[in-house]
């Protein structure tokens, strides 16, 4: 009996296609895959799971290794810690919601959106208390922006330490955020003349709070409830977070519950004890919010070695808090010669930008690196240039060029050049 007639007969009888019947059909037609192209694998000769088998989808079982990971020895507890995005397995500029890096200071709270409220007060004309319903009624905007923890790459300030793309660069992620412009909310409350700063605060146990200049709040900050088309993930601040485009992750307050306007900054613990940059002369820089231009080659990388000589596509990501990426150059010889890579659309302001460059690898040792130039003309520095300015104790804002050493066997290592 031919497969079609076999199927038609069963369907005509109104029989339910059970697994065993499908297997029966497959056995009748079995071909060893190698002998008879185009070969049918078992999944081509059976029926798959129906719709809503997984009402909320999930990645293929074989992708189980593609997960956020942490460095257990780095922090005292997982509740005040970080996890890193698996950049080595991601494609394009959008980070899937389940893989967006995490940084919590008092763990991930599970907030009830029905009880969550945002208060805006201080130097405003009309202090407001807004429910989630109220906030979602305001005119909405959707924007694609990266968020990067300023400590991304912090473990490589002193020397090349983490032999991994995930752990050296995985505290950057990028999503489409949907919400209301903070300026819309502040126009709704009205702003008193003396107001120059905003204190933004979360509803987590850390009651995480930071000061922001009012100008930035009115420029491009967003109060968002959605991420890549669905409600924010709890790890990303559900039901409400602040997005401060192009500025260090810590100011993008999650579980946002309060905004207070004032005439001076607050100098909170997170902008004095932490998130300040200690210089070699003992002074510290404070309020260093901007994420400077940075780029990294995501293939090859320590997790994704080369498989023998031949033609490859070098792939990478570039971003800048200053606006748009203008150009990315790639070197294979540790910075002696550079070639400009192709930037892939869309090239968006304060978003990850994808770049590629074809490369014929001859199997000889190589030192692969990328260097971004942003629309202000700022050029990504080397680690040596950064150290010359800031020493190696400033923890934050290491945006230096990342060099990958490729050995003749194709293996890849994180190195720094003198």
């Amino acid at each position, binding site marked *: 009996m031919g497969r079609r007639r076999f199927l038609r007969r069963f369907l005509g009888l109104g029989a339910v296609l059970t697994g065993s019947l499908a297997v029966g059909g497959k056995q009748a037609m079995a071909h060893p895959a190698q002998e008879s192209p185009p070969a049918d694998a078992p999944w081509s000769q059976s029926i798959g799971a129906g719709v809503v088998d997984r009402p909320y989808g999930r990645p293929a079982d074989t992708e189980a290794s593609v997960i956020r990971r942490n460095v257990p*020895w780095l922090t005292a507890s997982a509740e*005040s810690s970080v996890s890193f995005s698996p950049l080595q397995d991601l494609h394009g500029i959008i980070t899937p919601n389940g893989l967006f890096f995490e940084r919590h200071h008092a763990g991930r709270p599970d907030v009830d959106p029905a009880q969550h409220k945002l208060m805006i007060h201080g130097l405003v004309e009309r202090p407001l208390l*807004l429910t989630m319903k109220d906030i979602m009624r*305001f005119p909405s905007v959707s924007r694609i922006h990266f968020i990067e923890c300023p400590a991304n790459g912090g473990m490589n300030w002193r020397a090349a330490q983490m032999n991994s793309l995930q752990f050296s660069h995985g505290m950057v992620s990028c999503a489409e955020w949907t919400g209301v412009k903070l300026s819309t909310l502040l126009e709704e409350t009205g702003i008193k003349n003396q107001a120059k700063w905003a204190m933004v605060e979360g509803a987590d146990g850390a009651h995480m*709070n930071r000061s922001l200049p009012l100008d930035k709040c009115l420029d491009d900050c967003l109060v968002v409830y959605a991420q890549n088309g669905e409600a924010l993930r709890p790890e990303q601040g559900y039901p409400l977070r602040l997005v401060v485009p192009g500025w260090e992750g810590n100011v993008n307050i999650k579980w946002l519950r309060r905004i207070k306007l004032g005439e001076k900054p607050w100098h909170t613990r997170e902008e004095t*004890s932490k998130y300040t940059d200690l210089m070699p002369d003992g002074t510290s820089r404070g309020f*260093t919010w901007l994420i400077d231009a940075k780029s990294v080659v995501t293939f090859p990388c320590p997790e994704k070695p080369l498989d023998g000589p031949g033609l490859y596509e070098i792939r990478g990501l570039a971003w800048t808090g200053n606006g748009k990426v203008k150009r990315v150059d790639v070197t294979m010889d540790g910075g002696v010669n550079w070639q400009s890579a192709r930037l892939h659309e869309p090239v968006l302001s304060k978003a990850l930008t994808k770049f590629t460059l074809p490369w014929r690898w001859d199997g000889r040792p190589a030192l692969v690196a990328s260097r971004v130039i942003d629309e202000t003309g700022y050029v990504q520095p080397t680690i040596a240039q950064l150290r010359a300015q800031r020493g190696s104790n400033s923890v934050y804002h290491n945006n230096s060029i990342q060099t990958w050493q490729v050995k003749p066997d194709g293996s890849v290592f994180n190195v720094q*050049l003198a």
Partner: protein
Amino acid sequence: MYSSRKICLPIVAVLLAAGSLAGAAEPGSFGYGSVATPAQIAGWDIDARGEDGAGLPPGKGTVDRGADVYAEQCAACHGTFGEGEGRFPKLVGGVGSLRDERPEPTVGSYWPFAPTLWDYINRAMPMQAPHTLSADDVYALTAYILNLNDLVPNEFVADRNSLPKVKMRNRDNFIWTDPRPDTMTKPCMNDCANAADVRISSTAEGRNLTPRTTGPLDTMQQK
């Protein structure tokens, strides 16, 4: 479209008549949400400003009282004298270390403002039960930690007037305007360096600091 439109239009008319900026929204033009009442604001308004202590509540606490609360609520993580258990943060020490190879930034060596200490303990500590201490106990803990750092005498009483006056050691060493960009490069394309001078100064190979990136999560601890 909006329920407040009827109210909104006359306001716009008045604005235009007065020659105000056309298009500038008047507060309340959407009319969503509710005006926060003084009582609601008082319940939420927990911050204290570092520089001048604005926002610090009434109440007070002594060093002695602080020692008792600390032993009960804080010592398990931060050590009896603030020395820090395991990798939990030290709350004392590091004075004079900020230019060292391994600096130790702490309340004593690094923090610029004492009211920030009250604010942080109040909002974020103790870690497993944040924002559950009374204002008096937070004042007492602040007094105790400042005293452990030799910043105030044993008789010190912390309150909204005394805390802003505590002189912190690192107060004058912060620059609050960002000096970046602090590196300048011309993006050279060819023969930018002598190939013979390109030298690897450090490598992560063989350091054994990197958790695995396939399979289950790693539990590696530092050797």
